[in-house]
């Protein structure tokens, strides 16, 4: 690989990369984790074989890209320049795609997106995409993350070249400050300010870190950026290092993301070979080196001081906040840590200017934000929208509303530190400040939609249980307070809630927010407080009526068979793992509640035409053993 020794070399490479694309058909096959799970690898193999057979292999470019966003309908194949988007592509579909689209320019209609009686050919016209503003993810469907020249062909590293040749570090910081770029990892701290404090710290040895721990369960924005556009994060990091005066940097990537790790390592290797990373970058006096550190599975490790301990090879426990990372961080040196998406925005701001960046977003939150729109929504996936887009626009216009026509109940944002927002607030614009006022927070971008089949007490219990496991145990309020909350919530969901329990939960919440050491503890009660605020009646139903209105809490539900409807087909009895269902063939069956483990297999097994199995929640059906326990 040729090493660039000046911005001119880079410019030439960009032109030739852009030229080589010109006029050639490109098949972009999503090979992100979601699509790989949907078997995109066999599709790739079939594609290569089929193109070979048709003698078309050198006429087209086949790219394996990162996540296109619409993961639920993967594997996704997009044919450029027409941008024809085929969804849920299986290996058997490939021969037809090659014969029709590649060789004759015709469409394979059955693989196109259809919605409300319309057929959509171009990816960007599909409602899931057309309501988005893709800036950070702009080239995710176009770029091969394993090929640095592809990134260069889309103006990659142009911002770095510009900075090194034409701007002082202070000018770079000023641009980022003027853009008002706020950290995407959840806190929303102004990036430019953090850069400046680190730059101004006395110690000449400084570090920069990419936080790719993404511990928020249900969120995968950072995974997709690292998998699909690792160079944009790397370029942002190098620019930041130049502005801050850092000579070494780290990527911290969670070990659950093997593909993100592989693609990042490859990006670093290629950038080094190209002279864009290492000694005397692009022939300038600036040198900068990068290492990758894998996380080992601990939510609290995503907290900045805990992450620094982990890179030092120690247990990832947070430190007191008065020791500022920007003064004394990694190995005691001034350290600037930013989230993956924060870094990925940097090259865009430098290339297009702070004014361009500020043109999108709200008063206090500029630019776009990527969300992981998941749960009980019709179209799940990764979406990028301007800050200030309302929850309703995201869930209904992009996500297509609630799955299978059920009713919306709440959307959970902000991960374990966030909260649940009910229907009444769906018109709230999403940014750093508005969701906080509702008792939740925007957080890093997880957006989990829940319908009436979710129990809000169970959801609160789920998060608090998660935090109990993840609390490092260093400070007492967090360790004991969370454990006590779990005990109470377990009791409530098991039908043994006591009248004072709600007040008790509220007391612990105050204690946690005032006395815990790090953000994990101070925000740990948020899921409880926000569900109490909007769904208090559900708590009360569990405590006083001993029912779970959503039919989720196992101790408060029972499965029954309607003798009128049951045709005695035996489908449920065959699948029941505990042999709790008995009955003669062709006669109504019944469930022995003492043997039943409430796994729900019978409900799934009962043929749709009979619908004889029902899930019920009322005192009368709860076995006595539970009622009196």
């Amino acid at each position: 690989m040729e090493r660039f020794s000046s911005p001119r070399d880079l410019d030439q490479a960009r032109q030739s990369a852009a030229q080589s694309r010109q006029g050639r058909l490109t098949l972009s096959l999503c090979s992100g984790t979601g699509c790989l799970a949907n078997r995109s690898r066999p599709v790739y193999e079939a594609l290569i074989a089929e193109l070979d057979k048709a003698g078309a292999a050198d006429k087209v470019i086949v790219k394996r890209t990162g996540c296109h966003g619409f993961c639920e309908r993967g594997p996704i194949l997009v044919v450029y320049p027409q941008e024809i988007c085929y969804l849920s592509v299986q290996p058997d579909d490939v021969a037809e795609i090659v014969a029709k689209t590649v060789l004759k320019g015709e469409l394979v209609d059955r693989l196109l997106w259809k919605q409300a009686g319309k057929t959509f050919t171009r990816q960007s016209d599909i409602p899931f995409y057309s309501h988005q503003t893709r800036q950070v993810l702009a080239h995710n469907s176009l770029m091969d993350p394993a090929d640095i020249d592809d990134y260069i062909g889309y103006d990659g590293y142009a911002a770095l070249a510009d900075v090194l040749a034409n701007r002082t570090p202070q000018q770079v910081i000023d641009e980022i400050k003027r853009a008002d770029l706020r950290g995407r990892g959840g806190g929303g701290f102004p990036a430019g300010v953090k850069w400046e404090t680190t730059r101004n710290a006395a110690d000449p040895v400084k570090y920069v870190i990419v936080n790719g721990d993404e511990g928020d369960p249900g969120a995968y924005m950072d995974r997709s950026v690292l998998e699909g556009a690792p160079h944009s994060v790397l370029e942002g990091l190098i620019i930041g290092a130049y502005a801050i005066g850092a000579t070494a940097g780290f990527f911290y990537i969670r070990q659950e993301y093997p593909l993100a790790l592989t693609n990042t390592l490859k990006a670093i290797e290629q950038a080094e070979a190209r002279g864009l990373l290492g000694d005397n970058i692009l022939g300038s006096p600036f040198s900068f080196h990068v290492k990758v550190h894998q996380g080992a599975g601990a939510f609290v490790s995503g907290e900045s001081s805990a992450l620094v301990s982990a890179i030092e090879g120690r247990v990832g426990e947070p430190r007191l906040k008065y020791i500022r990372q920007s003064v004394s961080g990694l190995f005691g040196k001034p350290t600037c840590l930013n989230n993956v998406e924060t870094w990925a925005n940097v090259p865009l701001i430098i290339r297009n200017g702070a004014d361009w960046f500020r043109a999108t977003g709200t008063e206090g939150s500029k630019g776009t934000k990527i969300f992981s729109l998941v749960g009980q929504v019709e179209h799940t996936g990764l979406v990028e929208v301007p800050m200030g887009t309302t929850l309703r626009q995201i869930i209904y216009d992009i996500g297509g509303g609630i799955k299978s026509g059920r009713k919306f109940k709440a959307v959970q944002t902000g991960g374990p530190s966030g909260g649940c927002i009910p229907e009444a607030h769906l018109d709230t614009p999403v940014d750093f400040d508005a969701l906080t006022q509702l008792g939740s927070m925007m957080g890093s971008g997880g957006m989990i939609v829940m319908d009436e089949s979710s129990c809000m007490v169970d959801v609160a219990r789920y998060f608090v249980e998660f935090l109990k496991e993840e609390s490092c145990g260093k400070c007492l309020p967090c360790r004991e307070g969370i454990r006590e909350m779990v005990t109470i919530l377990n009791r409530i969901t098991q039908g043994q809630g006591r009248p004072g329990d709600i007040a008790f939960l509220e007391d612990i919440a105050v204690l946690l927010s005032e006395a815990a050491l790090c953000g994990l503890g101070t925000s740990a009660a948020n899921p409880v407080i926000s569900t109490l605020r909007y769904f208090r009646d559900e708590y009360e139903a569990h405590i006083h009526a001993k029912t779970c209105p959503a039919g989720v809490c196992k101790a408060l539900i029972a499965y029954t068979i309607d003798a009128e409807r049951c045709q005695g087909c035996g489908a449920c009895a065959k699948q029941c793992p505990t042999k709790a269902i008995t009955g003669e063939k062709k006669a109504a069956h019944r469930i022995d509640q003492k043997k039943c483990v409430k796994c729900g297999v019978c409900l799934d097994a009962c043929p749709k035409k009979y619908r004889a199995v029902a899930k019920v929640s009322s005192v009368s059906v709860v076995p006595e053993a539970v009622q009196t326990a």
Partner: protein
Amino acid sequence: MPEATEELCSLDRIDRIIDRYGGQRSALIQVLLDIQKEDKWLAEESLRHVASRLNVPLPQVYQVATFYKAFSLARRGRHLITVCMGTACHVRGSPRLFDRVSQKLGVGPGKTTHDGRFSLLTVNCMGCCALGPVLAIDEDYHSNPSAADLGRILSQYE
């Protein structure tokens, strides 16, 4: 069990892993992750060797090995079944998926089947949230397999 030691990272291989990181103490977590990946667990002799080579006190090695969820101090089965318990998967029924798998294997979370074929683990998100509830068998992902699917899938593993 002589057979058991054979499966483990030999001390030579551990040395090679440590050398890859230049023998630095700060590489402790990375070294343990590499051993965990090869062996699927961390044996006491591996930990002792790492402690002496990196010159880190053994209690500190244990502290790290027990703090992070990626590490296992118990031997694991030949295949790892990981059920995602993340939020997106939770609201789409991962507790029921977990029960299904657990019933099928006859073991609870963190446990290994008697024949040593499978260990059943949970994780808090593997980044396939749009496909939830998901489970992975080694590196292959499956979106919400039914009880019948599971039987078919599991029978493919030795």
